[in-house]
């Protein structure tokens, strides 16, 4: 948490950063921690939640996120620190903004945006997603922040979300929707403008899903992939491979039988978790040739604002590159 923590090179590559992952892997936490990291490095950050999740606001010292932008983390940790603003973007809201932007006026706009969004969206596959992405594209165009971090819908929904633009390019031949789709597709495909951070856990199912997601995003949609974030990693503790008795002897300490037994149980549990984690790292090495950042598992059930600093610190580390992968 020392001053002068610098923003990693990869985080400064694009203005738009999508954070994606399966439900429960901590996508929102990673999005918030990345915002803290970038703001500490001096950036003006806009954090956008598109999944109706508002909990990031309180975690960053504000009120629950809503459609109106609010400044979070108002107290800068040190001089030169940037700021974090947060908001949600919903399809309905984006639709209203879009109609306004395109000069659909008054009654017509109200009629169109209130009653029939469901119908219009239903009639046009991917329309809701496109509206949200279109709004993000607009925020990028207006350079409304140095870094726009998008807490994307959970995997499973992430691919349709990000695919909406290219799908609509195929379905719609001309008109404003087509133009919007073209512009969004251009933003996503431009590796200087946007990239994706995928988040996973060192467990079998999340690893399987992130491998699948990576191929969808990169091969199918040509998105730029930032380093993979593996959240919730148990710290490596070699001492867990010993019995408590041996460990105590080694450190010249005497322990009661009950204590040794308790520690043996703890060590056995810890070893099993570490073994499982190593197995998953090996699978990632084999199957997902991407630089990787590991975040520590914090021994808490509820994250508090100070935990974001711990995670931001870990995110600042140089990503490790699996053997045989060139950057």
């Amino acid at each position, binding site marked *: 948490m020392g001053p002068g923590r610098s923003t990693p090179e990869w985080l400064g590559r694009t203005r738009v950063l999508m954070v994606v992952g399966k*439900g429960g892997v901590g996508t929102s936490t990673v999005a918030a921690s990345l915002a803290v990291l970038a703001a500490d490095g001096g950036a003006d950050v806009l954090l956008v939640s598109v999944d109706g999740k508002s909990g990031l606001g309180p975690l960053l010292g504000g009120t629950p996120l809503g459609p109106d932008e609010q400044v979070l983390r108002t107290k800068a940790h040190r001089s030169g620190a940037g700021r974090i603003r947060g908001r949600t973007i919903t399809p309905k809201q984006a639709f209203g903004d879009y109609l306004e932007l395109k000069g659909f006026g008054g009654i017509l706009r109200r009629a169109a945006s209130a009653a029939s969004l469901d119908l219009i969206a239903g009639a046009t596959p991917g329309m809701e997603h496109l509206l949200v992405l279109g709004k993000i594209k607009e925020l990028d165009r207006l350079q409304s922040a140095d870094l726009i971090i998008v807490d994307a819908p959970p995997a499973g929904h992430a691919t349709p979300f990000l695919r909406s633009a290219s799908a609509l390019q195929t379905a719609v031949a001309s008109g404003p929707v087509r133009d919007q789709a073209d512009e969004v597709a251009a933003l996503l495909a431009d590796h200087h403008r946007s990239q994706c951070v995928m988040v996973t856990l060192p467990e079998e199912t999340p690893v399987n899903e992130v491998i699948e997601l990576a191929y969808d995003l990169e091969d199918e949609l040509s998105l730029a992939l930032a380093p993979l974030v593996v959240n919730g990693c148990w710290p490596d503790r070699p001492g*867990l491979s010993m019995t408590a008795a041996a460990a105590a002897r080694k*450190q010249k300490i005497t322990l009661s039988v009950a204590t040794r037994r308790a520690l043996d149980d703890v060590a056995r549990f810890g070893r099993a978790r570490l073994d499982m984690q190593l197995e998953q790292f090996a699978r990632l090495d084999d199957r997902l040739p991407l630089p990787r950042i590991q975040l520590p598992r914090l021994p808490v059930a509820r994250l508090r604002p100070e935990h974001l600093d711990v995670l931001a610190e870990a995110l600042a580390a140089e990503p490790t590159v699996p053997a045989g992968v060139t950057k």
Partner: protein
Amino acid sequence: MTTVDIATVLQEAGLVVTCGPGGVGKTSTAAALALAAANSGRRVIVVTVDPARRLADALGIDGSAKSHDPSEVIGATSHPTGSLWALMLDAESTFDRLITDRAGDAKRAQTILANPIYRSIAGSLGGAQEYMAIERLHQLWSSNEFDLIVIDTPPSRHAIDLLGAPDRLVTFFSHPIYRIIAAPGRSFARVTNAGSATFLWVVRKLAGPKVVEDIIEFFRSLSGMEAGLRQRAAEASTLLRAKTTAFVLVSSPRAEAIDEAAHLADALRDGGFPLRAMVINLVHPTPASIDADDIPTELPPGPLADQFALYEELTALAHDEAIEMDRLRDLADDVALVEVPLIDDIHDLDGLAELGTHLLLNAHVDLA
């Protein structure tokens, strides 16, 4: 009211619905409950939405080849009368079948199924997935082939989306714009033109004239089916609130999951859905307590320091998780609440059986 344990729920219920936030092991829990019920002699089917690949393999359902018909999980139970079946839900094919059933004649069904608007609604209309889960459930229920149906719901931030889906689909079909466009005659044209013209004009402006033609055709072809859909939705709605239906809320002890689960518990009660059990999955074990004299005040790095460090972390984590779990316990009232320990990735019938043991045991999760 007395608290009913999960074993009793599995004996008495005709329908078990698991719901909860994503990433908490909901699908495994649904499968484990189904297996436990099969082992007690019931004919059980577990219906899942999006199982992890290895779990799907264990249940003999292949994600790449979705089937409309249940398949028996061979060797799941040795009980003479018990059997376990599995089905992976495919929203689109269920929707197709609904249309085919309701369209009246094959030609009309074909027209609807081929319509691009229909295709996009079946795949992407908000709530269509959820509605189809309910619809398929209704079909299975009516078939009377099973003593118990265990249905796993999609991870839904607002799981009420799922339960409200039948009503919402009806709202969709009774939307004024739908009615206007679907009305075949021209007699209402003068009165209603403004609304429908606005809608169609907006769509035309946004997405082009071809889409407008498709919309008109789609709505016209659906007219007359609405009554049937309404009735179906009403039946589904009754089934979900029946006495023999049991909702099982699954969470993890993490705060975000508990927040969502608590919200869901309230919503279930408000909606009149019978919540019968809460499962807190993925609970970290509490280490045995250590004699205070044995805890070294200053320990240089080394193997014992590693062990004490993890000991302290797990103790702190268990304490923190207990606080979160208590929040859900406060909401449980007369509903059974079960803690289930963190079990390594469950991917076979043995793993499901182990999970089932914990679900029926209801013990505090200790490390030993």
